[in-house]
């Protein structure tokens, strides 16, 4: 490890509350980790230390530091995130919060709703409302409505607002078309119904877990006693990513800890869409006796700062020095179409690798990765022989063909559920289930043997001889085996058991798949676990029969509900490959690299904020005055966010930036977004 700086040493030694302020790459996290080791080395039992990080992925870095330190045994060191802690503590102290929190059956143990289950519950609520005409004329897919409604619940709780106050804010600050107010009122009905259902069935989604923790537990004397007796030292990294609820907790805890070290990443606050409140976090400085300014950047060269300044000057009308900004740009790759862009980019990256840059020192950062761009990019990387991996935070299971395939068989095994897959789905499922069966022959089988009415597969005797011959006896027999197996399934078999049996008893067997189907296993494992979670919570969600559970499961996936724990789709990723990530995914992962590719630099996606007519993250921010929402405010926010993004990226780049752009977007429209324009002087040079 590099020698520590004076300010790092002071931070490590501090014996009171201290605030560490500095940009990314200035050594704050290292100082916090060393401080943790110092406390342990001084004989402070690990049990008395609490480390709060912004993302679950950051826990490991702190643990690794302890493990590599050679400090010996330690007991019950708690390194966690605010939401994990909230969930854990609400579960532990449930008897203290259930009744005052409004739960109708306070003796019933709580069931936590993972994000996919919360979506299914909300989906059930809005389906009925949609049938009655709610949200009419709102151009959103049902899945988008569901996720925005959950966003409102979560944002309210994380901002320390009551649900009523949050609803009121959204309606009162709207100035556009009157129609929107009706949609917001429908949204209010849906979220209120969702909350009531949770209170009646002891269900806790993220919002309710946070609300219970923030409004009931944190101020409860028993809880205070527990925390006071246990935690003597608090370490908080990336406080700028904490929400008002998280900050409230930190402030309260500081009253009883002997020391607290809080690190603030200037320019961060990337989780603003999840209620991060960087300005509130900065105020915690006032609660600290010591403040340390981290100014020496170990990562970013001066030209990187100049490049970020260039963007600021354009967006925020500042007048910061930009001398040498062009030196931060390695190359500009520009093609007319996206295909031109990716096919030029890949050889350039291959060249960097040939010259000695490890592939894990390259990150491709993209505002959004639609299916076509994903395909073009990964194809180009594969052709250039470059390994890669997708830093996928969440994903939609329906995008995985094998998930669709296994669910197709589930629907066919239970025809009374009334879900008829399309002929295409069946053909696709056959291709994925029987090794060596190509899509053309699978389509022929589906055409001849699949009846949507029923729905059912017909016996293979229905195939004309010529076709049976063309397909081959081995394949035909497997199709028949599959059909008979599906027919034989008991109607009372739980869906998770069905999916497990389908894979293990049938599709993973060598006659169907001679080589172990590792990707298929990952997908099936995910499906079985998701189905188990749904089955276990089914009653509380309001699903009583196996058919209701099955239909909800299949419907939910088909509606594009996203999951928090996606299976690894496709080939196993290469963790040492080139990272492909969305902007915030990359920034929150916190990884530094030598080369960053800013893909689609001219796309307005760099400057866009998610379109969420039913849930405005900025209006719901606790610190915002309840004034009318204006276009000027929205533009100012977009500029500020892009400025922060670029500052964050350049602070995480030890080498240079590659700008890669296509003139036309996927709809053939010319692109010339704000980032592209801001970078013009650096592009020209």
């Amino acid at each position, binding site marked *: 490890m590099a020698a520590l700086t004076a300010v790092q040493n002071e931070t490590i030694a501090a014996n009171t509350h201290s605030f560490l302020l500095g940009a990314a790459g200035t050594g704050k996290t290292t100082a916090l980790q060393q401080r943790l080791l110092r406390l342990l080395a001084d004989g402070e039992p690990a049990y008395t230390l609490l480390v709060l990080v912004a993302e679950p992925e950051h826990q490991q870095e702190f643990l690794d530091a302890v493990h590599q330190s050679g400090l010996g045994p330690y007991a019950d060191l708690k390194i966690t995130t605010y*939401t994990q802690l909230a969930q854990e503590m609400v579960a532990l102290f449930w008897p203290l919060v259930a009744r005052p929190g409004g739960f109708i059956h306070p003796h019933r143990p709580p069931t936590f709703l993972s994000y996919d289950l919360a979506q299914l519950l909300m989906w059930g609520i809005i389906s009925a409302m949609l049938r009655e005409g709610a949200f009419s004329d709102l151009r959103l897919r049902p899945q988008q409505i569901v996720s925005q409604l959950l966003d409102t619940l979560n944002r309210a709780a994380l901002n320390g607002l009551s649900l009523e106050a949050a609803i009121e804010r959204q309606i009162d600050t709207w100035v556009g078309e009157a129609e929107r107010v009706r949609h917001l009122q429908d949204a209010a009905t849906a979220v209120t119904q969702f909350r009531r259902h949770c209170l009646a069935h002891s269900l806790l989604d993220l919002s309710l877990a946070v609300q219970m923790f923030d409004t009931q537990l944190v101020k409860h004397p028993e809880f205070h006693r527990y925390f006071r007796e246990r935690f003597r030292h608090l370490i908080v990294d990336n406080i700028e990513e904490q929400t008002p609820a998280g900050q409230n907790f930190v402030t309260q805890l500081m009253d009883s800890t002997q020391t607290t070290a809080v690190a603030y990443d200037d320019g961060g606050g990337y989780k603003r869409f999840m209620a991060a409140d960087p300005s509130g976090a900065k105020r915690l400085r006032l609660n600290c006796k010591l403040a340390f300014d981290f100014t020496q950047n170990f990562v970013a060269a001066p030209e990187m700062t100049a490049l970020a300044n260039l963007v600021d000057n354009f967006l925020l009308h500042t007048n910061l020095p930009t001398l040498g900004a062009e030196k931060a740009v390695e190359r500009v790759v520009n093609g007319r179409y996206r295909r031109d862009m990716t096919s030029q980019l890949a050889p350039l990256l291959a060249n960097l690798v040939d010259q000695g840059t490890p592939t894990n020192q390259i990150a491709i950062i993209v505002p959004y990765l639609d299916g076509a761009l994903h395909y073009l990019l990964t194809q180009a990387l594969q052709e250039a022989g470059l390994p890669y991996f997708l830093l996928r935070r969440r994903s939609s299971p329906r995008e995985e063909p094998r998930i669709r395939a296994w669910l197709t068989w589930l629907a066919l095994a239970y025809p009374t559920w009334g879900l008829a897959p399309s002929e295409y789905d069946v053909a696709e499922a056959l291709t994925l289930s029987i090794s060596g069966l190509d899509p053309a022959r699978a389509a022929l089988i589906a055409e001849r043997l699949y009846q949507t009415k029923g729905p059912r597969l017909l016996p293979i005797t229905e195939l004309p001889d010529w076709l049976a011959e063309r397909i081959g006896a081995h394949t035909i027999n497997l199709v028949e085996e599959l059909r008979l197996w599906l027919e034989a399934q008991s109607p009372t078999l739980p869906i998770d058991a069905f999916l497990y049996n389908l894979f293990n008893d049938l599709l993973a067997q060598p006659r169907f798949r001679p080589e172990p189907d*590792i990707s298929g*296993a990952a997908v099936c494992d995910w499906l079985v676990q998701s189905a188990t979670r749904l089955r276990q919570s089914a009653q509380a969600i309001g699903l009583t029969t196996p058919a209701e559970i099955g239909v909800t499961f299949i419907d939910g996936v088909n509606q594009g509900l996203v999951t928090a724990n996606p299976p*690894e789709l496709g080939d196993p990723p290469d963790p040492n490959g080139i990272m492909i990530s969305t902007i915030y995914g990359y920034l929150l992962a916190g990884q530094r690299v030598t080369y960053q590719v800013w893909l689609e630099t001219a796309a307005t996606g760099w400057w866009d904020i*998610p379109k969420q007519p039913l849930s405005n993250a900025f209006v719901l921010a606790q610190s915002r005055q309840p004034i009318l929402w204006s276009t000027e405010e929205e533009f100012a926010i977009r500029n500020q966010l892009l400025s922060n993004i670029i500052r964050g990226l350049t602070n995480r780049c030890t080498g240079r930036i590659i700008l890669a752009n296509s003139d036309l977007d996927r709809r053939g429209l010319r692109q010339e977004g704000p980032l592209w324009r801001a970078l013009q002087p650096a592009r020209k040079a």
Partner: protein
Amino acid sequence: MSQSLLLSQGKLEAFLACRRRFYLRSLRRLPWPAAPLGDESEEALARGQQFHRVMERHFLGLGIAPEEIDDGRVQHWQRQFQASGPAIPDGQLLPEHRLTVPVGRHLLLGRFDLLVVGEADGRAFAHIFDWKTGKARREADLRQNWQTRLYLALLAEGGGALRAQGGNGRSLSPDRVSITYWYAAEPDTPRTIRYTSAWHAQNWADIQAIVAQIDAALSQDNWPLTDDWDECRRCAYQVYCGRQTAGHDPLTATEEEESDELTDLSLEPQTP
């Protein structure tokens, strides 16, 4: 491979049962669907977890009355515990406590239902309590069990890290370490096992030997399939290994489902 591993009881047992399984599950982390538990096992597991939670609250001083417990069986267990639970020595009560102890370049991990640490006769002691809601086992079996052996060894080697002021040593004298198993099915006859220095010398040597075998397997990248096909009857990787002919045992949940991985609790939605 040169990684440092976090080794829990479950992982040691997996290594001893089948090296291939240890490799697939803990090193390669190869997902392969495991059979869902049957309703009965699932209920038993949920009740067991609920009872552990009730005990954790009890030892945190939350004072939850049995009638506040929804499940009749769990309520009954708690009443039994109140009427005839084991004597708890005076000391600091640490429910659901984890201890991590380095061994070579790896780490051993134990999670105790309740740990009591304190001083008696001027000497430090540590006493583990473990609540069991399944079928009661004989003391002789428990002495051989890896939970007993690992937990006692962890405290002897790393118990110094537990003492409130950090202690000044890393270890506790083995004869000051003990474990009590309390079975809800036999509440009046807790099984208490006392550790000794002689036992520790042998036990710790055995643990180190297993860790050395893990190191050797890591350096040679050698993970053979087990010869004991009975192990394959309960293993998720049966098809992967081509051991389908081993057949299946009905799945039952182990009472202490350990999770020593960092988990994404997944209540949160995606970041745009």
